[in-house]
């Protein structure tokens, strides 16, 4: 359609008829204790530190429960438990037996899937539709996938013998608490390592529920140790001399600190850091599916996604039509109670994160840039942000350069494919990228030229345990998932 058609375009009404009644998932089946201790050596243990902290539900600011804060001594205890389990049990166990433990864990999570999903939504603010349909099923899939590897590692690396590293220290972000824990635990255990894992301070609950499940699975004590705490706890793990490997997912800033901290040691490390992905839409794209991909790309998990498609690059000839369609689609996104099955966008995970997002937005507004926000009634309590478009910005704007980690999409235009690629790569990050075109050869060309570890062509934000994930440049080092995700947990010997 030509630009002239826009004058006759009428708008669609989404808000005034047939609002869906709330359909909340009941938290009644959820069993949570008032207080959780540290999971070390197969049992819950009081923290030596004596300290506890609260974890909040970001959708109503209510305290869910209290969680122990592991100090240096606690971390040391956990590492010693992991070392002992590695030396005495896990490294001696045949691969097929390790695999059976992982299969068992996968099954047990499957049995309790809904409980995990509800807790995940309570603790993070993410909509139940996502925790139920994405997070938890992917967690299960990750354990199933890696379970099968445990006795097949000799086939993964031709010409080499694979040996585990020993004790892995794993630091988990708050955006996908259980999923990221699974991404780290499953390959570590399948390859024969034991581990000390630290969930994010603001979303520790599903990992602690997993600890209970691990007890039920009869995993040998000390193979998995779960220590909750702050960034300091994480730092104790990173600095612990008996940890052989660090796996971190989180911000590029913290990732750099970790890389610096392990300098001069023999610790191996993998880093899965930030991103500022371009989602490129060419004029010949299937436009309605592109719109859907844009929405999935930036509004999935409130935009708290390292690989979010936060920079929309649109070919100039279709910009008006695409943005119009995108706005229509955004109007149908339901923002609200994370436990409501109809919620598309839940709560922003924390107050600091909300303030950070608002900071970017107010800067944009102060600079006189247009922003578009959907009509959405927000609850009084809790942390919320409507889906937002920022139009007419350029590479020089801070909101285009920095990772916002919220439901904020910037819109830029381009004229030619090479300009699109140049814009896409004009960033220190390189985690992911999207491109939309109906032309096969263009997909391969543009896909090759995007400097990023994951390229979604005519789709976005798809994940699978068989599919390696990780970044170029400042988006990280190493891969998680697939054969390539095993390598960071192994030493290859001739």
């Amino acid at each position, binding site marked *: *359609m030509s630009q002239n058609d826009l004058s*006759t*375009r009428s708008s669609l*009404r989404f*808000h*005034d008829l047939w609002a*869906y*009644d709330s359909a909340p998932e009941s938290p009644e089946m959820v069993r949570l204790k008032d207080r959780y201790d540290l999971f070390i050596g197969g049992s819950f243990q009081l923290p030596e530190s004596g300290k506890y902290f609260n974890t909040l539900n970001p959708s109503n600011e209510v305290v869910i429960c209290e969680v122990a804060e592991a100090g240096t001594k606690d971390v040391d205890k956990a590492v010693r438990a992991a070392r002992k389990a590695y030396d005495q049990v896990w490294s001696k166990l045949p691969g097929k037996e390790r695999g059976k433990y992982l299969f068992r864990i996968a099954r047990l999570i499957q049995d309790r899937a809904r409980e995990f999903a509800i807790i995940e939504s309570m603790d993070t603010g993410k909509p139940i539709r996502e925790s139920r349909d994405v997070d938890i099923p992917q967690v299960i899939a990750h354990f199933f996938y890696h379970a099968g590897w445990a006795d097949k590692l000799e086939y993964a690396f031709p010409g080499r013998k694979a040996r585990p590293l020993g004790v892995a220290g794993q630091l988990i972000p708050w955006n996908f608490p259980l999923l990221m824990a699974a991404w780290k635990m499953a390959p570590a255990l399948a390859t024969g390592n034991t581990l000390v894992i630290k969930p994010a301070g603001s979303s520790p609950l599903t990992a602690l529920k997993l600890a209970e499940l691990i007890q039920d699975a009869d995993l040998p004590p000390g193979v998995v140790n779960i220590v909750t705490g702050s960034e300091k706890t994480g730092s104790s793990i990173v600095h612990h001399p008996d940890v052989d490997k660090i796996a971190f997912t989180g911000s590029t800033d913290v990732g750099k600190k970790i890389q610096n901290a392990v300098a001069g040691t023999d610790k191996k490390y993998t880093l899965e850091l930030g991103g500022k992905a371009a989602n490129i839409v060419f004029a010949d794209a299937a436009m309605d599916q592109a719109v859907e991909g844009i929405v999935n790309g930036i509004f999935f998990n409130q935009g708290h996604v390292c690989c979010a498609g936060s920079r929309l690059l649109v070919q100039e000839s279709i910009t008006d039509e695409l943005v119009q369609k995108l706005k229509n689609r955004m109007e149908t996104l339901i923002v609200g109670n994370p436990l409501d099955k109809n919620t598309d966008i839940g709560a922003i995970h924390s107050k600091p994160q909300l303030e950070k997002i608002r900071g970017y937005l107010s800067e944009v507004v102060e600079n006189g840039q247009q922003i578009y926000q959907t009509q959405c009634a927000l609850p009084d309590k809790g942390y919320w942000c409507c889906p937002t478009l920022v139009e007419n910005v350029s590479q020089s704007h801070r909101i285009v350069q920095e990772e916002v980690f919220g439901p904020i999409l910037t819109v830029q235009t381009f004229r030619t494919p090479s300009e699109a690629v140049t814009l896409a790569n004009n960033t220190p990050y390189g985690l992911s990228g999207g491109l939309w075109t109906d032309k096969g050869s263009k997909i391969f060309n543009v896909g090759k030229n995007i400097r990023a570890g994951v390229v979604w062509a005519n789709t976005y934000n798809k994940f699978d345990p068989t599919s390696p994930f990780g970044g170029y440049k400042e988006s990280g080092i190493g891969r998680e998932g697939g054969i390539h995700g095993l390598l960071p947990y192994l030493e290859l010997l001739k």
Partner: protein
Amino acid sequence: MQDRFLRKIPDFDQTIPVDQVGVDDRVARFRTRSIKMESKIFALKLALQMVDLTTLEGMDTPAKVRQLCYKALYPCKTDSDIPRVAAVCVYPNRVRLCKDILKNTGIKIASVATSFPGGMNTLESRIEEVRYAVNEGADEIDMVISRWAFLKGDYKYVFDEIAVFKNACKPARLKVILETGELETYENVRKASDISMYAGADFIKTSTGKITPAATMSVTLVMLEAIRDYYFHTGRKVGMKPAGGIRNAKTALHYLVMLKETLGAEWLTPELFRFGASSLVNDLLMQIIKEKTGSYQSSDYFSIG
């Protein structure tokens, strides 16, 4: 005026890309909507009002068609609060009978025509059939496009025949059946939708019900998006009728979710959306009564159409 309209007709040799997996993913997301309480009752009643209660069999005796008409008139004797369906849909030689029973009831009479379901006859005889059905009292004509011409790439033929039927069926409204099961790809569905609308269709309809697959949510979404783009382009609202295979209330609600979130509230009316169905009616009724009474229902308590 005529000239201005013609200039807006797209080049149907150009294909608008549609990605199948993307469409199916979108549809899967509509299916996750959970419709409860008041919003459920509203939607169940709305769906009921959107049904074209259909019988299109070689064995449609007058007695069978009469039975259908009475079901349309009295869907649920036990509850007077329950709305009626939008229309009955029959073969041309049963239109007169329906008209006699349903005149002045507000229930419309739709007739298939144009050598339904294959469309394999001369243009003249197909036009003749349309005129016959309209003369017998049909308010709506459900025509079939010539899939053979479409698949051969003769889009002009398809366009012209629709335009001719549109002219011949006045004052009845024209529903154009694409028979999406035979078009196979979503891009074909999109193109056939565009051809139909630009040639004058008042409704576009998925299927005859004689071919598998009949209506699917994915195909319907592609058609709804075509309707939306056509509306943006011309300002004219075209209706949508998925037909065949929609048998239960839950599926119907998913269709309505999709309708609302694609075209907005203005399309949530029997004027612009119909279900071509028969057994759907009783499932909708059973769900409505269940919502009212709290008891799950048995088909023994609901009359057959």
